[in-house]
């Protein structure tokens, strides 16, 4: 019988089928762990006297609470609070107690959980990947089934390497046509979310298909899959192809064996299908307080959308007239080398506009090293931007990197919820190209004229 990519991956990892009374038991190939959503799960294990069953399939990193400023003269990292430091130390203790490998501070492989998994070659096609983090959907770019779980389920995976799961529905999102050079994976993602809404994907695993998806780099595919959750979807997937395998060869430092069966069969049936004309997508920005309030940066604020009061925007106002106070480049959505190169293309030989603060935060130690070896950091510093240590930073603003009330932040992250980047802060989501163009212009800008 013809099967979708999702069905093939699901069946490969199925321990027991679901019944009316009980969900399926799904085996987990890779469990990623970070400091924020794991401590209470380890506490449950301790209370029950259970050990981590497969530390070899578990990988922990530190990203959310860690400062992105270097240690001071005393050697102490400038944690925002004692609670933040305690959270990092708690993860360290838990990993030591259970033999879980940890990419600790000082480890040159550390970084944002969804950046390091692929970078280290741990994320592979056909796997199930979970993490106590909704943007786990990122790893679907490799043809893995990857989704976020809550802390109780983190405990389930630690204890048994399995999860009780109902089989989700499937939706094909087919991008037709070829977009222009200024349109990135981020713009395709925002266009899709604008089309189906923040609940359009609820209950579904999305599979992205079409020639413009095939043309995307792994970085672009990760950005798109990362944002699947913003459409409410459980996960996003892209069938592996030569782009995927050669990325993995690079990450593994050797040729990895190809798996030729990971694609959707021609006659396979999806529960839903939508089509998006990629050739009509323009560089996108958000203008409201949910990611589906997205439109071309060159357009005006549409009428009747919730959230524009909070954003202090008016209906009909041209988005390129909106002044910017801050620009943030980073996160598991757009904190990879390709993203920083895109920013470099726009910033090269230009200056960040007066009065605009620009923060550039690499997604991992490796991204930082690679960017520095290409001289990107000097270019950023010369343009007047700040260059930080790896971490989630202003994506979630829990490490002290945050805006002030009223700030307007053009951000390459994934959520423009009220207060996400600090109380009273207004967030405009955009691609790295659009963010960099806006930094130079001092207002929201379409990157077209800066390339």
């Amino acid at each position, binding site marked *: 019988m013809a099967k979708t990519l999702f069905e093939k991956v699901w069946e490969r990892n199925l*321990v*027991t089928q679901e019944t*009316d*009374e*009980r*969900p399926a*038991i799904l*085996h987990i190939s890779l469990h990623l762990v970070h400091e*924020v*959503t794991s*401590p*209470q799960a380890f*506490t*449950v294990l301790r209370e*029950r006297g*259970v050990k981590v*069953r497969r530390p070899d399939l578990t990988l922990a990193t530190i990203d*959310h609470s860690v400062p992105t400023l270097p240690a001071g003269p005393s050697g102490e990292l400038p944690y*925002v*609070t004692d*609670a*933040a430091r*305690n*959270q990092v130390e*708690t993860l360290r203790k838990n990993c030591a107690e259970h033999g879980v490998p940890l990419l600790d501070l000082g480890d040159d492989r550390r970084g944002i959980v969804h950046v390091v998994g692929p970078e280290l070659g741990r994320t592979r096609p056909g796997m199930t990947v979970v993490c*106590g*983090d*909704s943007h786990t959907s990122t790893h679907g770019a490799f043809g893995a089934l990857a989704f*976020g*779980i*809550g*802390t*109780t*389920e983190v*405990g*389930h995976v630690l*204890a*048994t*390497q*399995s*999860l*009780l799961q109902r089989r989700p529905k499937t939706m094909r999102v087919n991008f037709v046509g070829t977009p222009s050079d200024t349109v990135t994976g981020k713009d395709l993602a925002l266009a899709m979310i604008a089309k189906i809404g*923040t*609940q359009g994907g*609820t*209950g579904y695993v999305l599979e992205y298909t079409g020639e413009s998806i095939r043309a995307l780099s792994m970085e672009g595919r990760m950005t798109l899959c990362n944002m699947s959750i913003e459409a*409410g979807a*459980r996960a996003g997937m892209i069938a592996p192809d030569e782009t995927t395998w050669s990325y993995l060869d690079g990450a593994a430092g050797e040729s990895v064996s190809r798996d030729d069966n990971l694609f959707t069969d021609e006659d396979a049936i999806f529960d839903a299908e939508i089509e998006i004309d990629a050739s009509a997508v323009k560089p996108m920005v958000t203008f409201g307080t*949910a990611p589906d309030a997205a439109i071309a940066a060159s357009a005006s604020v549409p009428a009747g959308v*919730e959230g524009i009061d909070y954003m202090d925007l008016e209906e009909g106002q041209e988005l390129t007239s909106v002044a910017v106070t801050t620009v943030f480049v980073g996160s598991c959505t757009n904190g990879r080398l390709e993203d920083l190169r895109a920013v470099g293309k726009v910033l090269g030989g230009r200056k960040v506009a007066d009065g605009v603060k620009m923060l550039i935060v690499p997604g991992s130690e490796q991204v930082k090293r690679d960017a520095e070896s290409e001289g990107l950091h000097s270019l950023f510093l010369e343009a007047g931007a700040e260059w930080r240590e790896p971490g989630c930073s202003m994506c979630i*603003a*829990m490490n002290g990197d945050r805006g002030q*009330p009223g700030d307007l932040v053009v951000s390459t992250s994934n*959520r423009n*919820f*009220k*207060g*996400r980047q600090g*109380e*009273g802060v207004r967030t405009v989501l955009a691609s790295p190209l659009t963010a960099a163009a806006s930094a130079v212009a001092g207002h929201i800008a379409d990157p077209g004229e800066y390339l």
Partner: protein
Amino acid sequence: MSIEAFTSLTSRTVVLPEENIDTDQIIPARFLTTTGRDSLADACFHDWRFEASGKMTDHTLNTTDISSHKILVAGNNFGCGSSREHAPWALMALGFRAVISTEIADIFRSNSLKNGLLPVIVPPEVLADLHEQPGVEISIDLDAEELRFGNHVVSFSTEPFARRCLLDGQDSLDVLLSAVPDIEAFEGAQS
């Protein structure tokens, strides 16, 4: 081990009519540095309930006695955003035991069910009715999968396994632990 059972609940409602209430509203990220799960009551809807100075606002959530209003009636699409289980923990710390909307985000719903916070999906016209009568008393019967208010009887559905666990107070981890031999056999066949 057992979890707190949920069989039925009769209580009044608090209405938050906003659509798309996301997990950053339910609990802002700066409260996520905790390593425990208690003491999250003040963090719940913190930035709606407190001014930057720390002064309490006159928001409904501050002026209502949640111990007699344990049912949160939200706008369409509740709980989108992050996987933080701190969101249901915080709602429960404030006193809520059920959330009603027309759509509830996947991960939030799954997290809530595991903690005894009942997510209930109702049709738009029922939600509209509930929005018009803030504070109305509702009876929720999980066994019958029905909620009743005034002379309305509305049925809802809950994933059968999660429902069974809630009714019996059973911890789903026990089910997985008892399946470890199957899991080992699967791993053995894989390698």
